[in-house]
């Protein structure tokens, strides 16, 4: 089932490429493929049994036994959440690109390839198998920026590629070392070893001069680097504003909505279960990085002149909350199952989902704006759009409020639970982060103020409001934000077994 789900967008993308002469047909096909993928993902969501511990829908085939490599897929609560999210964001992006004539069918195919890479990453359970998808998703993302980006696309795509590549290589080296010491690549096997406290001693087999504890710590940081670049965590984020701003907004929707989640996914699937001791030891620097990822980008976003850059920094800021939640949950507590840890981790997952929705929607609205202004998107260049295009301003306003965490909208439960869980576990870090929360509100409200209120900029006097088709396509996503804000149990119901596993370390 999962294999089909992964291959489906890939095959669909190839079919779209084959059809690329007939533009409309190719686009329609890409939409159909994305919709069908979403339906399959929802089917998995439906059949998934949330109360069961461990992986479901597992599929295991030997590949190169001498190298510990197997084809191994499966999903737990986290996996189900991620594939659904990837499918939703892809569909949104393809819908958004429908009326943009610059984006050829090749664009649609690349988005579908990226989706396949993402779903593969979110379901693979053997390092090598996982790493293929992790890297493969880089290729369509690179070309999305390189072929369809703005004027600085060559530089931005190159920077993006090099940064992620360096991170990936560090990650690869870490896992090679683990393989050489233990002979295993399987995430589940490694998790079991680590949770039984056997992984660190096993690394002594590596024949490496130096003490074991240090080597394990070193490997943790190498793996961390891979995910920190992807998420990104400050100070490894500098590729992101350029990449997000240069990519066409429709592509940025997928980059920020789904691809940035690969990093957080890595934190949850790999770092937290496989390096529990190392994460505890590295807790203080990790928390500092998390706080920096929350606070600094919020300030940076405030002073950006380009709306896309503002929201790019906002993306770093929002994922910073996730990193904070994960790092806080590494605190050793007296009870094995601490409600604080569970709260923080639940918050992280809610935040992942909510950020995917809101960030994708924000870039969608920017795409709509760009189409009306011919590509202009400076914060200062608008004013009073509230009066000219009330519906557009209203919908984008809702999205911005969801993004800053207004109760009733999807951003609130996640951020609230992260702060609630983190406060007792990492008090000072949480306190400083609240400052970031404040800044988040400040810069998002600044955007609203500068773009929507104030005197009407005469230049955009006659800007058309959203068409009926645009309103209808935006509506389901906006509705979903309300649903998640009012009824977060939709997600929490799926994940409590997974959360309990992470919070206790039992049941792997």
């Amino acid at each position: 089932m999962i294999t089909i789900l992964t291959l489906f967008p890939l095959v669909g993308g190839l079919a779209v490429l084959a059809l690329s002469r007939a533009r409309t047909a190719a686009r329609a096909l890409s939409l159909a493929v994305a919709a069908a993928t979403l339906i399959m993902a929802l089917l998995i969501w439906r059949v998934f049994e949330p109360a069961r511990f461990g992986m479901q829908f597992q599929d295991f085939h030997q590949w190169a036994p001498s190298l510990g490599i197997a084809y191994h897929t499966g999903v737990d609560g986290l996996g189900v959440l991620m594939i659904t999210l990837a499918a939703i964001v892809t569909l949104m992006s393809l819908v958004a690109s429908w009326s943009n004539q610059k984006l050829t069918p090749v664009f649609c195919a690349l988005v579908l390839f990226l989706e396949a890479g993402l779903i593969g990453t979110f379901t693979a359970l053997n390092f090598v198998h996982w790493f293929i998808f992790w890297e493969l998703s880089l290729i369509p993302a690179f070309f999305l920026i390189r072929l369809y980006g703005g004027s600085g696309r060559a530089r931005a795509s190159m920077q993006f590629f090099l940064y992620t590549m360096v991170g990936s290589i560090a990650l690869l080296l870490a896992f090679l070392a683990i393989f050489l010491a233990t002979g295993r690549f399987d995430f589940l096997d490694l998790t079991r070893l680590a949770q039984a406290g056997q992984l660190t001693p096993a690394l002594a087999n590596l024949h490496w001069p130096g003490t074991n504890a240090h080597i394990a710590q070193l490997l943790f940081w190498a793996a961390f680097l891979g995910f920190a670049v992807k998420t990104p965590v400050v100070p490894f984020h500098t590729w992101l504003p350029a990449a997000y701003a240069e990519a066409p907004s429709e592509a940025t929707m997928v980059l920020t909505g789904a691809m940035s989640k690969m990093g957080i996914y890595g934190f949850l699937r790999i770092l937290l279960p496989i390096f529990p001791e190392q994460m505890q030891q590295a807790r203080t620097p990790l928390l500092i990085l998390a706080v920096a990822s929350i606070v600094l980008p919020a300030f940076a976003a405030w002073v950006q002149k380009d709306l896309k850059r503002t929201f790019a920094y906002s993306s770093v800021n929002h994922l910073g909350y996730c990193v904070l939640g994960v790092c806080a949950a590494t605190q050793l507590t007296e009870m094995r199952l601490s409600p604080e840890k569970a709260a923080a981790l639940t918050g992280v997952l809610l935040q992942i989902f909510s950020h995917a929705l809101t960030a994708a929607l924000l870039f969608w609205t920017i795409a709509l704006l760009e189409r009306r202004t011919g590509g202009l998107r400076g914060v200062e260049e608008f004013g009073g759009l509230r009066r000219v295009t009330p519906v557009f301003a209203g919908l984008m306003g809702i999205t911005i409020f969801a993004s800053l965490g207004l109760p009733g909208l999807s951003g609130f439960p996640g951020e609230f639970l992260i702060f609630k869980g983190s406060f007792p576990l990492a008090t000072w870090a949480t306190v400083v982060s609240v400052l970031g929360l404040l800044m988040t509100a400040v810069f998002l409200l600044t955007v609203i103020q500068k773009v929507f209120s104030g005197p009407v900029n005469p230049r955009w006097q006659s800007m058309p409001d959203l068409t009926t088709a645009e309103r209808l396509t935006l509506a389901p996503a906006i509705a979903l934000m309300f649903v998640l804000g009012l009824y977060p149990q939709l997600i929490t119901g799926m994940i409590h077994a997974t959360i309990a596993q992470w919070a206790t370390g039992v049941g792997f």
Partner: protein
Amino acid sequence: MLAWTIYLSFLGAAAARFAPSKQLARIVALLTAVTGFALTIVALIHWQPGELLTVARIPWIPQLGIEYHLAADGISMTVLLLTGIAAIAGILFSWNIEHRTQEFFAFYLVLIGGVYGVFLSFDLFLLFVFYEIAIIPKYFLIAIWGSVPREAAGGANPGAAREYAAMKLAIYSFAGSALVLAGMAAVWTLSPGHSLSLETLSQVPFSTHFQMAAFPMVFVGFAVLAGMWPFHTWAPTGHAAAPTAASMLLAGVVMKLGAYGCLRVAMMLFPRGLDPWGFHFLGLGSWRDVFAVLAVIGIVYGASVALVQRDFKFVIGYSSVSHMGFVLLGLMTLTQIGLDGAVFQMFSHGIIAGLLFAVVGRMVYDRTHTRDFAQLEPMGLARVIPFAAVTFILASVASIGMPGFSGFIAEFQVLVGAWHSIPWTAIVAGIGILVGIAFTWRALTKAFFGEPTPAAAHDHPLPPITLPEKCGAILLLATTLAVGLYPRVLTDLILPTLNSPLFHGLRTGAWR
């Protein structure tokens, strides 16, 4: 029946030479290659794991103990499969040759026949004969049909540059052969009953002293052709000057002749030659250390030099030196996984290098008539010939060792083996892989993804990619992907053979 791969190639060569039309010569060549491959497959189906399949064994020059002895084990089977596939692909990629077509395919098939012969010979003398047979057509293929652009020839006459490359290749090959010949003579003298059968000789316990002396001589003799640093310099010039199909065979198969000889003759007959000397010189304690060092130097050096080339084909030429370094390193690990990786890499590199040369030589050079990055960059070839770009992207990721392609399984096994035997070589080789990523990336972006200037784009529309090219590219891509996804196809051939009596001597040495 397997012997017919050799006879058929020579018959095919004669038929192609005297074919009445060019098209007929092409078809004859293709049919010959396909039949040879099919024969290998059929033999493979009947082959038992670990078995030494005797194909023919009749006395040839009984006075000297020389037999006509053809046989195949799993390692031969692996390289035979490679030869079959590379031969078919090479013919598909030289479909457009119009200059002396019949002779081209005749020489081509003689080369293939010689290669099949080497891989099937189990008599040392016979192996040597086929080894020499293979050198001659290589010379003519380069000297007559070679491709040397004027700028690469340094202003000199392109014909002279071709002959220079061809002669360099021939001289290096013959010099290597001379070392092998000397080793062969010594073995013949010392072996009881003056036999030259590899099967017999592999069970003869030569004195350690003799093995220590004979091993480096024979190993170096073969390793010249495998592109071992510092004897690699024929490889980039030869590859770059050769016509596409010949570069594909040179990198794809001929370099494997050398590596195969290293394993089949030097290591199988003189396993004690790898033992420690008992003293240390510059930190090296055995021939094994020496050749491991040369192998990793080759890996890093080849990749570094490839990083700064201005000629597209030289990049691939030097990359072959780098990737063949993995074969030699794998052999020197003396671990089961490392040797498996080495043989796997022979196959994998044969396919991938063939593909890279096909893109550079046939798809790009034959259309643009330049291999200079400075001239290719403004063409923005990715938009002009997207099929070539996609093929090259896939070949590149296969070449840098992306999991899912054959190169990963091969190089990774070598690295694991190296880590368990001589750890620091694994680290240096790992750095070589990183440099490999860098030069592959550089070549890819420069050749295909330069910013097209309007003038260059519309100057002369390039002819579209033809059907034979597409078939050849798909054949090679499918092979590297299939082997990468299901490596047991090859490991089930190689591993039982490594555990067979032939390699008993090697296993009891420093083997882990």
